[in-house]
């Protein structure tokens, strides 16, 4: 009986952590989504300095580990007089990191919309804004959606890193439970299962979106 009830009594606290994990994922995803577009557009800007700055941004954030970036923001910005609350630090750090990958997805997706589409839009007398809103972006989004889905899964997993800057999300809750109960196996197995339960449905949706995008392109 004890063995059966054991894992279940660990669950409530872990579920509270999982809620924070989901909140973090959602908030960061929104930030990263808009930043991705901003960075992708900046990369095609008419000003050279802005284009170079964007390339540096993307290379730096993709070239280093998210964990290092997180620690950089958490420990070093305060030294320069800018200290953010941990939760905001986590969202900003992960958001910046993910937007570097996201901007490349946006850029690639926009490139798949051919010149003929742009020419046709112009022949129809659409303005630049109309062309983007009704012709280019809707087609680009279909192409970008599966990649964004994959990135969302990566983000969900990456939120585990913020446990190292003392945010009580799922992984941190796991560490606390190990300290208080000493039941390593059950705690970590449950944490893995909870992450899987959150990410797996997402991965099924991505597979479906991929199939749709492949049909759309044909």
């Amino acid at each position, binding site marked *: 009986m004890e063995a059966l009830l054991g894992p279940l009594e660990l669950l409530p606290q872990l579920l509270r952590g999982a809620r924070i994990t989901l909140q973090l994922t959602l908030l960061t995803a929104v930030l990263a989504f808009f930043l991705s577009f901003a960075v992708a557009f900046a990369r095609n800007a008419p000003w050279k300095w802005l284009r170079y700055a964007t390339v540096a941004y993307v290379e730096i954030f993709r070239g*280093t580990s998210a*964990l290092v970036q997180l620690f950089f923001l958490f*420990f070093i910005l305060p030294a320069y007089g800018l200290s953010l609350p941990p939760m905001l630090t986590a969202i900003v750090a992960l958001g910046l990191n993910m937007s570097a990958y996201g901007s490349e997805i946006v850029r690639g997706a926009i490139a798949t919309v051919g010149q003929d589409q742009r020419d046709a839009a112009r022949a129809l007398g659409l303005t630049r804004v109309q062309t983007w809103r009704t012709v280019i972006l809707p087609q680009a989004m279909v192409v970008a959606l599966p990649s964004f889905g994959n990135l969302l899964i990566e983000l969900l997993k990456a939120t585990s890193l913020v446990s190292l800057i003392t945010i009580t999300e799922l992984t941190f809750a796991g560490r606390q439970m190990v300290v208080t109960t000493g039941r390593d196996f059950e705690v970590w197995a449950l944490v893995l299962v909870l992450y899987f339960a959150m990410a797996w449905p997402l991965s099924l949706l991505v597979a479906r979106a991929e199939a749709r995008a492949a049909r759309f392109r044909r």
Partner: protein
Amino acid sequence: MFDFAFAWSFLPEMLKGLRITVIATLGGFAVALLVGLGLELMRRGRSKALRRIAQGWISFIRCTPLLVQLYFVFYVAPKWGLRIDALTTGILCLGIHIGAYVAEVYRAGIDAVPPGQWDAGRALGLGPVALWRAVILPQALPPAIPPLGNYLIGLFKETPLLAAITVLDVFGAANNIAGRTFRYNEPYTVAAVLLLVVSLLAAWAVRRIERRMTLHRTGRALPSAGPGSGPV
């Protein structure tokens, strides 16, 4: 703001950490190459059960964070009597994690081998082992090298996580120095710069290999082009 003398004083310790980072990267990648190949062969095998297991395993590994996988193996394995040190644990976990992604790369490479090659191999009377070793893999692996290079860089970027299970890689060394001196700026900045430099160099090398390989492939394709296929 940034104390160069202080940074200089701990640089040797950081470089020692960088050595561990490189060992973890190469070791982890070797494991990933084997694990990925094993998983892909299982997925292509005749046994339905093995195929299911491989696919389920890949989904599970890809849907859970590496950090938690590290904690699981590092803290639970010793209780099951498996005593391995932190660095080996890290190398195994990195390899198992990235291996689940590498399987996908093998899949694409193997799918790209024309079906005629399978038929020709079988027509020559090759058994399954000889067929894979002498016909399929030699053609499937070279095109897979550039994407594999990208996963090597990806794996390199995951190595700082090993610091969470007490491995003294670059990041672990930075943690130690920061914890000892209560000065965070210099250690973490130096760690970030070292990791960025290695990662950019590696990305540059992968791009070069990629370009050389595409040149190589198109160069080889030319003589075998049939009559009338050139520009008129």
